[in-house]
């Protein structure tokens, strides 16, 4: 069965410093992996996705993530945080050859300190 674990429920960084949101997954096959962002009182918006092409995936707003099969990780990074990045971030895994389900992590709330 596939699963996804977001290792931190809250992350605080200062504006202008790097962001790292950690995500580990479990899948028997080659998964598709996604990061979504949810700003307060809004719906979820896709940041980026990995679907077995390049392992380094670039998304919107300067975010990127690297698929590391050996570490079963798909961590989200950004070189320099902006106040507008304050939001909830969800890591998602799906694998049609496995459970055929889309599994959401519990989310990481990113706080940006001025």
């Amino acid at each position, binding site marked *: 069965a596939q699963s996804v674990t977001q290792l931190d*429920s809250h992350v605080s960084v200062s504006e202008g410093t790097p962001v790292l949101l950690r995500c580990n997954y479990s899948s028997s096959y080659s998964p*598709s992996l*996604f990061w*979504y962002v949810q700003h307060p*009182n*809004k*719906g*979820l*918006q*896709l940041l980026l*996705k990995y*679907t*077995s092409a390049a392992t380094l995936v670039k998304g919107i707003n300067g975010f990127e993530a690297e698929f590391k099969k050996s570490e079963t990780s798909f961590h989200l990074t950004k070189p320099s945080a902006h106040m507008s990045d304050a939001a909830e971030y*969800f890591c998602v895994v*799906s694998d*049609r*050859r496995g459970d055929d389900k*889309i599994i*959401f*992590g*519990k*989310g990481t709330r990113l706080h940006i300190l001025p």
Partner: protein
Amino acid sequence: NAGVTQTPKFRILKIGQSMTLQCTQDMNHNYMYWYRQDPGMGLKLIYYSVGAGITDKGEVPNGYNVSRSTTEDFPLRLELAAPSQTSVYFCASNILAGTEYNEQFFGPGTRLTVL
């Protein structure tokens, strides 16, 4: 394209009342989903549909019903509202891209309070 639209945005129900949350998508997606989001709990799948006339239970289906008579619409019905159903409800849709799921598109959500 409007994407995924949901109505209403907010609703307060009394215990035992019923209501239907509406969801419509104009992207011709065959897959549609209903999630609920409780504070600090991420998203939990209530029901999903792989096409018109086909629905299936997700992780937390009790107290809810769905139907899918058209590709565009996927309403969620609460028959006897309970305080435990106080939550934010999101509708989403997507398609298969080759052999994998494409990204999900989410509606803006319905904030429901049951008193």
